């Protein structure tokens, strides 16, 4: 990092370091640099590299103090915005909070989908549930608060907004985000039997596309299984996700 006080390395126990960056953009750049150096064999062994909103946790590090001194000297190039594939998520904009979000955005309910689709997103970090990615990319004027009362059950595939983030629920869980739509077949989001278990991993770019017109229509019950061809490129066939509900402190 080239400008003043770009990062703070905070100790997190005997074998971990929490590196705090100035903002989401620096965090993305630093995370990419960690992965580059790890791939190049230029990083001490590290078990976990966990990006957060403004931090990157390096866990399972033999000597966190030595690593803290190293990272302070890194030159970190800005993250390239237009590299890598884009994962497309088909969405039906039929969520129960569509009207509330439209009101917050100052538009009609039928305009929410077009606005939501007009941005390219990036997985900033994961958590809450396997395959749940926190997507950044909405401009600040479209940020919305969480619902004042969380739902006890948000269905799998719900497309949701909260704060600066957009997300798709990989499985049914409790949740307090505003629900604007549905990914008709959420199975590609998380499949532990697949080589790459999570579709959305930190750094992945995401675009939402309309599922209208490609869906066989309401009531068929089978029309959603064929739509993952729209860019996700994965057929799972491994059955449903586990559905045990949990309510972690970091609740989404």
């Amino acid at each position: 990092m080239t400008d003043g006080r770009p990062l703070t390395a905070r100790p997190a126990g005997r074998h971990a370091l929490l590196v705090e960056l100035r903002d989401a953009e620096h965090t993305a750049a630093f995370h990419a640099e960690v992965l580059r150096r790890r791939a190049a064999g230029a990083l001490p062994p590290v078990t976990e590299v966990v990006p957060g909103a403004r931090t990157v946790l390096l866990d399972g590090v033999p000597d966190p103090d030595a690593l803290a001194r190293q990272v302070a000297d890194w030159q970190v190039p800005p993250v390239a915005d237009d590299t890598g594939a884009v994962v497309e998520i088909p969405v039906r904009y039929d969520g129960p909070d569509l009207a509330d979000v439209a009101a917050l955005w100052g538009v009609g309910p039928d305009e929410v989908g077009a606005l939501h689709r007009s941005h390219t997103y990036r997985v900033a970090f994961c958590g809450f549930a396997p395959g749940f990615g926190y997507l950044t990319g909405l401009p600040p004027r479209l940020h919305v608060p969480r619902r004042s009362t969380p739902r006890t059950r948000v269905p799998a595939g719900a497309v949701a907004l909260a704060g600066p983030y957009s997300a798709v629920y990989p499985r049914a869980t409790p949740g307090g985000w505003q629900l604007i739509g549905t990914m008709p077949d959420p199975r590609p989001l998380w499949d532990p039997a697949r080589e790459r278990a999570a579709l959305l991993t930190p750094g992945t770019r995401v675009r939402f596309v309309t599922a209208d017109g490609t869906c066989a229509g309401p009531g068929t019950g089978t029309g959603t299984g064929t739509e993952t061809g729209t860019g996700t490129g994965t057929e799972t066939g491994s059955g449903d996700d586990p559905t045990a509900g949990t309510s972690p402190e970091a609740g989404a």
Partner: protein
Amino acid sequence: MTTRLTTVRAGALTTVQDAGRPGHAHLGVPRSGALDAPAMRLANRLLGNDPDTAVLETTLTGCALRPDRDVAAVVGGAPCAVTVDGRPAAWGAPVRVPAGSVLDVGTATGGVRSYVAVAGGIAAEPVLGSRSTDLLSGLGPTPLRDGDVLAVGAPARPAPPPVAAPWPGPPAELVLPVRPGPRADWFTPAALRTLTSAAYRVSPHSNRIGLRTEGPPLQRLSTGELPSEGMVLGAVQVPPDGRPVIFLHDHPTTGGYPVVAVVPEPALAAAAQAVAGTPVRFTLA
């Protein structure tokens, strides 16, 4: 031919556990794995299993199993009565369970979690390289229910000669060494002193996700919201009520409450065996 174990009595919460699935925290996948890892390893070693072979982890009330072939088993961890077809059998040492007999792992007489290792290990289907049940995200085998049938792997080698193994007893007082955590500066200077001098107790609301405590709340200096960040095993997270929660193996991989301190992993085995009400003392490591 595969040996099968039928669950005659599942107990309050019995799960399959091994060393867990590290390396997937960035996908939101907890490490999981046996909470009292030394107990799991010792039970396995006594049978000639590799130390991290999958075992059963019980919670307070044990479980009962019936093999369809002769198996060797070790019950360790939390002390409890062990019987085979109602006859007393050894705790903490290999036991032979004849085909069709019932191995009963009784209610813990101290501690919380007993470990049942069988020669060859529990052969559940691995998920992301581990057979562990992860209660937070629902990965791995579901917790045992009465009537469930488990497959047992083929023993890797003949059982070793019996040895007298030292099993640590459950803690009468839980002493947890801590180092200041990444967000210690979110708390008043008095808060860290409170943490390391006040009397806490293990809360009955503890589980595989976290050891909750009861005691004086820790006062925060900063009242702002913490953007979600990565959480380590042993993190002492402080929710708005001020009562420290020590993150155990099924903890969320990112979280939004500040971490005041971190307990080193080796000290967590004792935390896994501390019953509700056990006094907790945090000491500066």
